[in-house]
């Protein structure tokens, strides 16, 4: 029984690790300036925990193997160093890993969430609602109009509750269903929710942030590759949660300017 | 002061339910009432106190967060009757302790002790009535549960406390009932547990009152 267990646990461990190592199912390529540090952190963690995983399971299997067989007098054989060596090993090994990962990881985290957006960043106001994302650009005047929840009317496309009749700044605000941005330019998002909690997740950017009703939450990034990427909701928001998505379209600078002109013209 | 284990075991078995060693030697009861270790019920109350403290701590932090997170907190004057209520509850702790010291003294002071217990019970009832009056005063001013976050927390805190105090009143009532039957404090369990809980309710109210005074 012990030998069977040892073999099974070893096989399971090796097969599991193989899929991790082979990157059979893996993250999509990173397109964000802050994403590289996250990927690096992931690789470090994979190696560090992979060693622990392998060592732990193999040790278990090994001891289970050795524990099978005929009963003998084994009172003399105790784990070398006894409990003290276990405790010390755990503290030292895990402690070092924790220390390293925290130190390096906090930089990756800080780059995304604790540094402010660059001063000239392109500002986009993002609204999440059941079950769609809408994006608002300030338009040629560079100003966002005020938001009035009582004026929200999805039927006529006034998702944000703008009041262009009385609010000059709101007249040229551009509201679209995709997040269109120029490549290699800092983008500063402001996330707010119309109804319940949602979340903004773009895998390729390696970032995720919740929309909290009542709050305006900043999130900024710089995309380094042109392309079309999915923005999906990751905070349970109701029956349409699985279907709530939008696209992040990263365009070249000229294409973006062209797009913006077309939108402003409308 | 040690009670021999074997004696205690055998004595307890003779007594049946109470689980306490009988008073054998002293005519004057020692300060730490009837045995060295707390009664089971007293341990239970201590544990319950921890839980109740956590509940009110959670509500306190909820209130602090809620006040800070939006600009809609409206301060209001606490109904004056709450000052009286505080005095009443404080006084009831004193009457409770008086009752207990009388009961400890022995047979001849037993009735006096019982009277003081009844006074304590009545004071507890008056406190609860005072709470209801306070709620009516606020309602008269248009401050209901949902009117404003400040009133919401006021009602939640005072109702939670009053509910727990009613539990204490029931406990005290039950203790009085038991004492009436045995006519002896030495042979009645739960005295220290009941008084501990009562004093805790008093202390909790003082904390709440100060908190509400400061934040409402």
């Amino acid at each position, binding site marked *: *029984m012990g030998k069977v*267990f040892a073999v099974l646990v070893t096989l*399971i461990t090796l097969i599991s690790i193989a899929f991790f190592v082979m990157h059979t*199912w893996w993250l*999509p390529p990173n397109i964000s300036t802050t994403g590289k540090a996250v990927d690096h*952190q*992931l690789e470090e963690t994979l190696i560090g925990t992979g060693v622990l995983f392998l060592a732990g*399971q193999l040790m278990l299997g090994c001891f289970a193997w050795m524990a*099978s067989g*005929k009963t003998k007098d*084994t*009172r*003399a*054989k105790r784990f070398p160093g006894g409990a*003290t060596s276990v*405790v010390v090993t755990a503290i030292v090994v895990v402690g070092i890993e924790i220390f390293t*990962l925290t130190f390096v990881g906090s930089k990756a*985290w800080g780059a*995304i969430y604790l540094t402010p957006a660059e001063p000239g960043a392109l500002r986009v106001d993002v609204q999440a609602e*059941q079950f769609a994302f809408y994006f608002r650009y300030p338009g040629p005047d560079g100003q966002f109009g005020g938001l009035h929840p009582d004026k*929200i009317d999805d039927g006529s496309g006034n998702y944000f509750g703008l009041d262009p009749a009385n609010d000059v700044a709101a007249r040229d605000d551009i509201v679209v269903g995709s997040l269109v941005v120029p490549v290699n330019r800092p983008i500063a998002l402001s996330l707010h929710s*119309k*109804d*319940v909690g949602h979340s903004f997740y773009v895998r390729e950017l*390696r*970032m*995720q942030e919740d929309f909290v009703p009542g*709050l305006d*939450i900043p999130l900024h990034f710089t995309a380094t590759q042109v392309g079309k990427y*999915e923005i*999906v909701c990751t*905070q*349970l928001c*109701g*029956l349409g949660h*699985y*279907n709530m*998505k939008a696209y992040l379209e990263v365009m070249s600078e000229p294409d973006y300017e062209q797009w913006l002109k077309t939108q402003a013209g409308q | 002061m040690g009670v021999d*284990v074997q004696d205690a075991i055998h*004595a*307890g*078995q003779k007594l049946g339910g*109470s*689980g306490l060693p009988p008073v054998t030697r002293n005519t004057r009861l020692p300060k730490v009432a009837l045995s060295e270790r707390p009664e*089971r019920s007293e*341990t*239970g109350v201590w*544990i*319950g106190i921890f*839980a109740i403290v956590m509940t009110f701590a*959670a509500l306190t932090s*909820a209130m602090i*967060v*809620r006040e800070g*997170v939006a600009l*809609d907190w409206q301060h209001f004057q606490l109904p004056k009757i709450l000052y009286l209520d505080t005095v009443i509850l404080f006084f009831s702790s004193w009457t409770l302790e008086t009752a207990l010291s009388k009961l400890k003294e022995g047979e001849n002071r037993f009735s006096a002790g019982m009277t003081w217990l009844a006074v304590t019970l009545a004071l507890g009832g008056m406190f609860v009535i005072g709470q209801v009056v306070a709620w009516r005063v606020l309602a008269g001013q248009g401050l209901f*549960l*949902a009117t404003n*976050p400040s009133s919401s927390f006021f009602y*939640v805190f005072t109702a939670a406390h009053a509910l727990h105090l009613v539990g204490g009143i029931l406990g005290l009532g039950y203790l009085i009932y038991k004492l009436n039957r045995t006519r002896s404090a030495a042979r009645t369990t739960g005295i220290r547990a009941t008084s501990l809980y009562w004093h805790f309710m008093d202390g909790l109210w003082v904390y709440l009152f100060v908190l509400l005074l400061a934040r409402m």
Partner: protein
Amino acid sequence: MHEVSTHPVAHQHTAPTGFIRKYVFSLDHKVIGKQYYGLALVSVFIGMVLSWLLRIHLAYPDYHIPFLSKLSAVGAPGGVMTPEYYLSLLTMHGTLMVFFVLTNAPFAAFGNYFLPIQIGAEDMAFPRFNMMSFWTTFAAFVVMMASFFVADGPPISGWTAYAPLSAVGRDAGPGLALGQDLWAISIAIFCIASLLGALNFIATTLDLRARGMSLLRMPYSTWAWFVTSVIALLAFAVLLPACVLLILDRVAGTSFFIPAGLVLSDKLQPHSGGSPLLWQHLFWFFGHPEVYIAILPSIGIIATILPVFTRRPLLGPKALIGSMVAIGFLSYMVWGHHMFVSGMNPFSANIFSVPTLIITIPATIMTLLLTASLYGAKMRFDTPALFCLGFISVFISGGISGFYLAQPSLDTYLHATYFVVAHFHFVMAVASLFGVFAGTYFWFPKMFGRMMSESLGKWHFWLTFLGVYCVFMPMHYLGLVGNVRRYSAFVDDYLAPLIPVHRFITIAALLTGAAQLIFLWNLIWSRFRGPVASENPWEATSLEWATTSPPPFDNFGGKHPVVYHGPNELGVDGPDGTDFLMQTAAPKSS
């Protein structure tokens, strides 16, 4: 040095007569323990069937599940569940499993049955409170199940019930009306029941230990129940007011959790000023300790059982106990790691991640101690021992994935993906449940006086062990791709190619679930037909094995056990050529 109970353990109630007093409204902790176990068993089978329904829907979205339309014509017309019904079943799956299985089985069920016996007491400190806490739990269960039968069905906000989705009511969507009210009421009732239970455990452990049973001589399972009940006392005391505030927001028009300006179903909501993050803080302040409530008793059970089968003491008894206490303490400092990307101040992520990573140290110590205890032993590979080995393996797997999620920089990618689902299922659904399995096979003879079938047990173990890896290991890979959780269908571009993986998981889940029927059959068959068990069939040392199988009404037949050792006297010269000394074995020199 020895803490002796100066209180005579005179029994507080006489032996009951009559069916109702004996089996229904019983004051006997052993009956109450079995009642909790029965409730957990019913809950786990309902929860498991729910998981099958979810998995089938994910892997085969168009498949018509026959009886489903009978359960809810609205939720599953023609046997295909609507997206909202998927979320309802998901919510109930999580709620039943976390509360009614993982808090009930390893903690309330086994704890109630064995804690008094293991410390040498005749019953719990407060038998009437004990009876009340079971029936209150049962009431909570009834209220929870009632949500299946109301018009809109169970709530759809998940077991975490985040506000404002859970707080605004029907305007936020179907399943959020009466179902959500019932959920909140049920959980509030459950909190009260758990508080009573925890209070009982703590008072009993402190006050009713037998003569010679010092704290350090208590079995590891008792220590685990004790630490768990302290955690539970403080945690449920916070969830209760949170649920009350949620109910008030829903029915009384308050705004604890609901801010201003929300527009739902084209209606401007009448609330204002509340904080959704406040709900999250209150919930997770309970929620994180709750998961340690789920796992610690199982760790204690495994640590108690393993030495019996290695025939040698556990390595590092004090280190194990110390680690349990450390985990209990640290569990209160880490709740924010569920909220790294919740919109709370990102700097607090750095603060929360530190104790989150530190808590891996006592967890590692315990895992290593269990593993190192195998070194040099010759094991008896009965079913309880196999589940101990399995536990160590799955606890390693589940614990390792925690390392990733504890780091905010990785959580930004992995949050709300299947990686999280893999992590918590490994540590809770698998590891904790393995502890329950081990405990069942180990203690069944004591509880029912009969042995369970070894061959059925071994089939159960091998199929389950292999099965759980097939179900939950692939979820890590899905998480790395970024497969979001709580989705009722996979329609996003990048998700469609993952459906084959989901199919593999679903089939594995169905097969593994089927293997649990072996366990159920074993329980039922052995109860009536199992070979009769002796007093101490496993040759174990703790006090429950010093009495009959099953124990008499007052546990020790009127005798008061006196304890001379801890539970670690295994692999020593025992009487009559045995290799162990029971805790009650008097020393040779009289």
